[in-house]
């Protein structure tokens, strides 16, 4: 258990290190996950609301597919994006493999089902009433959507937190499409795996703690924003 105690000191050391490489890794982690969730949010939240509230043919099937994709293994998401972006793949000419952009694409794939699925469940029961109320008061579709988002912010917030939680903690996808290149596409999770493979458990735990602490701070900010 020494490793865990050491991990705490290690975490402190990392944060106070002033080491540019360390900060780079932390920064990239935060940015990649954040951008992924933001991009996904813009279509996943409305999509979740629309699917949650409306009846249409094959609705149940659609919901079940979304639920299923919540179980998409990160490695598989990564692999699919890898095959698309690889030199021999259809989008190879973009030369996007092993860049942060590629990592974002893979993570969008990964977090969208979660955001859609949890949003959907959260608005299913109340959404229609809110929408009707908004309509009777002269809201247009967009305004009604926005009202639903605000009224169901607890559930939608939870969907975003769950999505961000998955993005920042997963490793399979970013490892494959990012390549874990030191100084370029290495993020906290891939660094954790590397340290673990090298047997440096203290260091792995230290990075893990840093990751959790940062995510905690992010949650505080989100909560503040939600309250407003």
């Amino acid at each position, binding site marked *: 258990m020494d490793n865990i105690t050491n991990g705490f000191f290690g975490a402190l050391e990392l944060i106070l290190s002033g080491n540019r490489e360390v900060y780079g890794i932390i920064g990239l982690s935060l940015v990649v996950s954040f951008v992924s969730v933001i991009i996904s949010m813009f279509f996943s939240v409305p999509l979740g609301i629309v699917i949650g509230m409306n009846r249409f043919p094959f609705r149940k099937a659609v919901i079940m597919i979304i639920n299923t994709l919540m179980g998409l293994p990160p490695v598989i998401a990564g692999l699919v994006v890898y095959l698309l972006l690889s030199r021999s793949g259809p989008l190879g000419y973009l030369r996007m493999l092993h860049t942060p952009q590629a990592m974002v694409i893979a993570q969008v794939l990964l977090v969208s089902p979660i955001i859609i699925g949890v949003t959907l469940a959260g608005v299913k029961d109340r959404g229609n009433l*809110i929408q009707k*109320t*908004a309509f009777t*008061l002269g*809201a247009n579709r967009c305004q009604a959507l926005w009202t639903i988002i605000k*009224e169901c912010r607890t559930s939608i917030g939870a969907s975003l937190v769950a999505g961000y939680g998955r993005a920042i903690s997963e490793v399979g996808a970013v490892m494959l499409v990012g390549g874990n290149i030191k100084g370029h596409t290495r993020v906290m999770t891939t660094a954790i795996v590397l340290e673990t493979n090298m047997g440096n458990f203290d260091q792995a735990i230290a990075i893990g703690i840093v990751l959790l602490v940062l995510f905690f701070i992010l949650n505080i900010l989100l909560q503040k924003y939600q309250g407003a």
Partner: protein
Amino acid sequence: MKVQISGLCKKYDGKPVLNIDNLTFEQGRIHVIIGPNGSGKSTLVNIISGLEKADHGTVAYGSNQKRFEEVRGSITLVMQHPYLFNTTVFSNIAYGLRCRGADKKQTELLVKEAAEKVNLSAFLTRKAATLSGGEMQRVALARALVLKPELLLLDEATANLDPESIGIIERVIRDFQTATGATVVFITHNIFQARRIAERVYLMMGGRIIEEGSKEKTFGNPESRITREFLRGELIF
């Protein structure tokens, strides 16, 4: 705003709950709909306000028979069980104005005015969820009235109000109607209230309008036996 309904039909699970051949709400009147539970009153106003879709039939709005989409901004419904947004009373009343893009100052003015009318001035900063039943109902009324709709649909909008508030609200609605020339459709189970504010009265049963006429005629000398019985049942109270 005039409302012309023809051939309106709505079924749930094969069971017809609304079946109206012809019905016109003339512009600038207060129309009161009475009728037993489940007779289709709410369904009717929900369809008029675009919240539900009819299976058959049409509703035409205004003198030049517009479709709903063209007039949606001029219609407001106070639902039987109003949903209040989980914000302050002020924001609830301001909601529709904000949707219309009214500027901040004017919004504030209008909201305060509306709140005063329904006796809620002291409640503007309160969270809507903490209000008493009657207070909630008045918020729902205020946020509809503040929009000055051309067609105002009220579904049992005074059911939880105390007698004094009922009197106030009835006056507000009458004043609003006279001032703007709006069309008002008012659903109530309270025959005394119907007598007080109606210009025209409609009795619904089993999804049909079975009696329709001026207040005087309907209450004084109703056409059908059923109406007489319904009113008799009423007047016991």
